[in-house]
């Protein structure tokens, strides 16, 4: 039965319904509809709307994207490219003022992402200084982050890997960087708040936090309001995390049943897999990807997720590479991972990164973005309206 004839008066949608309808739209449509009227402009630009839009998008796996920085360009991959069809990244035009991405030789680009924002670090290996920029690939807006005002001289302290995360208590995004001043007694952490746009430094009370000193320097992972580092405590692998709301470090022990020391039966020697593990995310949970096994010849990669406690998710064959889980498909079958491979030429090793997709049910592996790239960084992001 047609309703057209039944319309007796025009219906203007009440504001809460307009908000509900708009919160379902992709960012491109919303940025366009800011032009509809001043009221819509105010609504779409508001923090509250950005938050509710993000909450809806984060529940929708199709809104997950991956941004890849190779050594000369930036590519973006959407959900279809990742888990459904093949696999070409869309080149993204980036032009950050005052932030040269492929400028100098000793500068490496590092990424950390959280919610819909990507934090880019330009780390100068010689001077040991870092510059930061926060970018929203969906709205194409970015902010250059000022240098910390009270950094001690970079030569007299050691900085750990930076992290980027979201503080639920203040609806704020933060950049954190732990460091130690020689001679390595007090540990501190620098925190930058995107809301106040300032840095601050606080002392931390944590026992033995430092990155694995092995070549495969793992990165930080953000998960549920905290930033996670891989660490070592008295020779055993451990996980340390910083709660952004409380601003306190905690320790998270490894799953108990995972062996990191594998005894070779014939020689009796121990083979340590302490270098071959990475932290990532599986959906909204922290995921540990660790190479382990009964013996050296019988290694596999186990994926463990942290829910109430550590739960083993899957086991996949070990192919000589380290895998960092990044995101998972809708049905939970396929996991996108960043693969790290070391190639030795003589005694010098070069690290190559590739994006691969593992199917957990039939143990097959597909390459995404085929060329192993010596300087590839990748991060996941969800479409969002933060930082317009």
């Amino acid at each position, binding site marked *: *039965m*047609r*309703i*057209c*004839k*039944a*319309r*007796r008066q*025009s*219906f*203007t*949608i*009440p504001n809460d*319904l*307009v908000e*509900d*309808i*708009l919160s*379902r*739209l*992709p960012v*491109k*449509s919303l*940025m*366009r*509809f*800011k*032009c*509809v*009227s*001043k*009221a*819509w402009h105010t609504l779409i630009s508001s923090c509250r709307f950005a938050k509710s839009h993000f909450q809806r998008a984060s529940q929708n796996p199709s809104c997950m994207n991956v941004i890849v920085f190779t050594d000369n360009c930036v590519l973006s991959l959407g959900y279809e490219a990742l888990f459904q069809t093949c696999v070409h990244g869309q080149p993204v035009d980036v032009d950050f003022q005052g932030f040269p991405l492929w400028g100098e030789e000793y500068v490496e680009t590092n990424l950390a992402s959280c919610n819909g924002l990507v934090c880019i670090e330009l780390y100068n290996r010689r001077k040991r200084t870092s510059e930061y920029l926060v970018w929203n690939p969906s709205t*194409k807006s970015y902010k250059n982050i000022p240098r910390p005002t009270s950094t001690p001289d970079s030569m007299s302290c050691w900085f750990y890997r930076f992290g980027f995360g979201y503080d639920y208590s203040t609806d704020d995004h933060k950049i954190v960087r732990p460091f130690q001043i020689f001679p390595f007694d007090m540990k501190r952490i620098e925190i930058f708040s995107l809301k106040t746009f300032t840095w601050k430094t606080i002392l931390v009370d944590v026992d033995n936090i430092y990155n694995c000193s092995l070549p495969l320097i793992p990165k930080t992972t953000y998960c549920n309001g905290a930033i996670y580092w891989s660490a070592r405590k008295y020779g055993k692998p451990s996980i340390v995390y910083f709660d952004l709301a409380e601003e306190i470090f905690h320790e998270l022990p490894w799953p108990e049943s995972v062996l990191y020391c594998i005894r070779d039966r014939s020689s009796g020697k121990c083979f340590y897999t302490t270098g071959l593990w990475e932290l990532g995310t599986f959906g909204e949970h922290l995921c540990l990807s660790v190479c382990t096994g009964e013996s050296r010849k019988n290694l596999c990669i186990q994926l463990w997720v942290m829910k109430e406690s550590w739960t083993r998710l899957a086991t996949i064959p070990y192919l000589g590479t380290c895998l960092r889980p990044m995101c998972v498909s809708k049905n939970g079958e396929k996991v996108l991972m960043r693969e790290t491979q070391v190639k030795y030429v003589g005694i010098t090793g070069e690290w190559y990164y590739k994006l691969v997709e593992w199917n957990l049910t039939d143990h097959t592996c597909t390459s995404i973005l085929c060329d192993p790239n010596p300087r590839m960084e990748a991060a996941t992001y969800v479409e969002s309206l933060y930082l317009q």
Partner: protein
Amino acid sequence: MSNTSENPNPSSSSAKMTLKTSDNELFEVEEAVAMKFCTVKQYFEDEKDSDVAARGSTTVIPLPNVHSAVLTMLISYGKKLPQSNAVADNHEEEETKKKERKKYEQGLLKNLMPGELLDLISAANYLDFKEGLEFFNQALADHIQNKSVEYVRKFFGIKNDYEPHEEEKYREEYAWAFEGIECWLIGELKQFMAKTKTLDIAGTLLGIKPALIVASFSVRGLNSLDSNILKPEMIAPGENILAAWINAIGPTGLDSNT
């Protein structure tokens, strides 16, 4: 997941309720479906408290803001949803029901005019029909996703309060957001603009040979309303005419027209 909640009134599991729409039509609806309309549920519970149901007569619940055509659609959508008092289905049955519902939803949307969506949303909002609102809001979002700003303004009846230069500036700055969208009015407008030409009065030219010949089917002579005007008032070269005509009689009075 379907619930196996204990039904407090076993006898009312197939009870019906009567709803009266704005155009005075009465609808008999199963209680399970009607309870999805929270406004109705609230009304029913208030009535129960006031002991009307105990009298045995079926109350007629008035819905002054809902037209019968709209209610028909909402009820049929409500019937397709999992019922809260249904017996627990096994996984297979649940999957088939889900597929059925998806198919029904797709069919529903295909035949729906955009304006009708607004009516459905209005009614679902008034009835506090959460599942219906969720579905129709999503349908509306999907519909406007790729539309232009002009379309959205017209659709929602929103007045543009931007100055032209402000709007122009925004469109330039965020040109990427305006790419690849369905250009509804703009496309048609552009087409029209391209075919518009201005005429200048050249004056009367004499001595042109050969003189122009007017086609046999063109009207000549005095204008029937004003004898000061001679027909044809305006002519242009060519004989192929593209014009609108009513179906009843052809332009030339012949049996067939090319």
